[in-house]
């Protein structure tokens, strides 16, 4: 620990001693303010890559990858993340997470679990590419965020979770078997040590009985095998090909939260004559009009200390552009705010998955 260099303590020994699919990312700040990856372990099929940060980087970035760019049935990923006080960590992916079809009806589902501990004064950003469940895939995703400081709101997070209809080019439109995504946010005390920094501890099974107070749970369950009336899942999704949820909390993102709330409040009203030709339309944000033209639907809710944004759309690019616009706080002409919260907190290059 003495040398103040950005190194990892990863060793081949600890790599082999952890179960398949497990991973651990532990961010620590060494005095005076050196961000380090104190630990970075992973085992197949999970792969973690951390590009060496530039000297003045505001945050560390880790790419969460899977070998072959996708997960097959039976794959189980358990990732633990600890961001210590004053730490800044951004998790990204390099391309969508492909979920391959379940081999046989009795094969186990594909599972991804992640437990993130966010200590007081630290920030965590999760901006992955969307999950892309292929036809007949069976996927369970469970992400738990443990916030240590909810009194002063200094355990800060921006989390994006999104899913697409599958491989449209292969005529896959929500042809999955089952998709389940759960994001849970807990207020925890420092002493609730469900997460420890020791290596080999990566296997969170997400079933610990006591985990502090449940603050927010966002769960989406898509059942492709069920018919509702005679409607298939695809029909129920109402030509939306992508659903995104963003959850934001914490002091550093106060301005971002205000920005999104204001934009939602200024959304053109539905059913107000024809909003795009109306004289009134000049008052409306150009980007809102564009969003509507691109078939983007969105809603923002302030719930129990969080801002939760739901976005859906008929095509990927429109939704990407829209979410990028929201998170980078673009003005009416679509130009990002110079010192937008996310850039201010984490540095540049955070929106890779949205480009």
């Amino acid at each position, binding site marked *: 620990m003495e040398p103040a260099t950005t190194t990892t303590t990863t060793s081949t020994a600890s790599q082999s001693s952890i179960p398949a699919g497990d991973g651990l990312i532990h961010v620590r700040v060494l005095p005076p303010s050196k961000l380090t990856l104190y630990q970075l372990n992973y085992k197949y099929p999970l792969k973690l890559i951390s590009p060496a940060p530039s000297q003045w980087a505001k945050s560390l970035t880790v790419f969460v990858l899977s070998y072959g760019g996708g997960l097959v049935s039976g794959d189980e990923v358990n990732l633990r993340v600890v961001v210590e006080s004053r730490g800044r960590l951004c998790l990204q992916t390099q391309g969508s997470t492909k979920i391959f079809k379940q081999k046989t009806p009795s094969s186990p589902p594909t599972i991804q679990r992640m437990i993130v501990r966010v200590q007081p004064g630290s920030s965590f950003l999760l901006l992955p590419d969307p999950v892309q469940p292929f036809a007949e895939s069976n996927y369970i995703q469970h992400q738990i965020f443990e916030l240590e400081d909810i009194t002063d709101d200094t355990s800060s997070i921006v989390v994006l979770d999104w899913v697409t209809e599958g491989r449209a080019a292969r005529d896959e439109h929500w042809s999955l078997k089952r998709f389940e995504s759960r994001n849970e946010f807990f207020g925890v005390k420092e002493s609730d040590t469900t997460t420890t920094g020791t290596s080999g501890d990566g296997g969170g099974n997400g079933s610990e009985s006591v985990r502090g107070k449940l603050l927010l749970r966002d769960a989406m*369950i898509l059942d492709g095998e069920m018919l509702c009336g005679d409607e298939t899942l695809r029909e129920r*999704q109402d030509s939306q090909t992508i659903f995104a949820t963003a959850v934001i909390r914490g002091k550093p993102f106060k301005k971002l939260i205000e920005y999104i709330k204001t934009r939602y409040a200024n959304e053109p*009203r*539905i*059913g107000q004559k024809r909003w795009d030709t109306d004289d009134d339309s000049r008052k409306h944000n150009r980007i809102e009009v564009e969003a509507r033209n691109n078939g983007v639907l969105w*809603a923002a809710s302030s719930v*129990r200390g969080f801002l939760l944004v739901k976005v859906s759309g008929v095509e990927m690019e429109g939704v990407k552009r829209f979410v990028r616009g929201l998170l980078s706080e673009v003005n009416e002409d679509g130009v990002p705010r110079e010192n937008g919260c996310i850039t201010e907190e984490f540095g540049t290059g955070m929106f890779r998955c949205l480009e």
Partner: protein
Amino acid sequence: MTMEGQNTTTTATITSEKPEETLEDLRSQIASLQSQLAAAKAQLEIKVPSPSTNLPPSPSPPLHLWLLLADSALPIGSFAFSSGLESYISHRSLRPSISPKPTPRSELARFLRLSLLSVSTTTVPFITAAFKSPSSVLALDDTFDATTTCEVARRASISQGRALCSVWDKSFVSSFLKVGGGGEDGIPTHYRPDHFGPSWGYITRLSGLKDTEETLEQVVFVFLFNHVKALLSAAVRLSLIGPYVAQQILASEEVGRLVRMAVERGGRIGVEEAGQSVPTVDLWQGRHERLYTRIFNS
């Protein structure tokens, strides 16, 4: 008064322990239930007229209770909510026209199915849990609050849940409270959950319904059937259908089947597995606030 109450409670417990299907037994059971009621009222220090013993047998308590809870005049304000229907219809008209153009009735039928599916995976698990373990209803209520992420849906749920609790306190408690008060079942009677689902499960349990599979199904069935009624009533006021068609839909075999399916589906889902199964419902409902004109609160 108090002493008498205590005595009759004891006899009541003894008689109700050996239920036989004879008329005589039924009568004595009714009598004992009435005295039990008097005892409960006495405990609440509410003055009640002494029950006359020569009344004809009243309908069994569940029927009486169901008629009250399924009454559209139940003052919990369900008429003020469309559960996203109003927003759904407004959004549908913005869509590029498809042929054949769906009729208002078919749009309504579709929304009804989606809404029932959504409620069955989000709310029903909490009704079930609150009914089964009424002593943990406040924790369930808090979990439901954390899980209901749509602001508009939250307001609708809280408004109806609180109203149901006040109807209970102001109107039903004197007649229906059959449990708790330090009784053997030990169900606390003083909790007042905020949300509609948890309070529905809790209040029906407080009304003395037994914790059996069959009763629980009825509890959920009435809740969901009420939901359908509220949607249809909203549809009439949105001029999607007329009142006769509304009744026709309500009476249809399909609605019965949809509600039963929703009961069955929701019954299989635990509180921890609950979640939104129709993501567009959250968007429509969330965007209700953005309607230029609106009749309903949700």
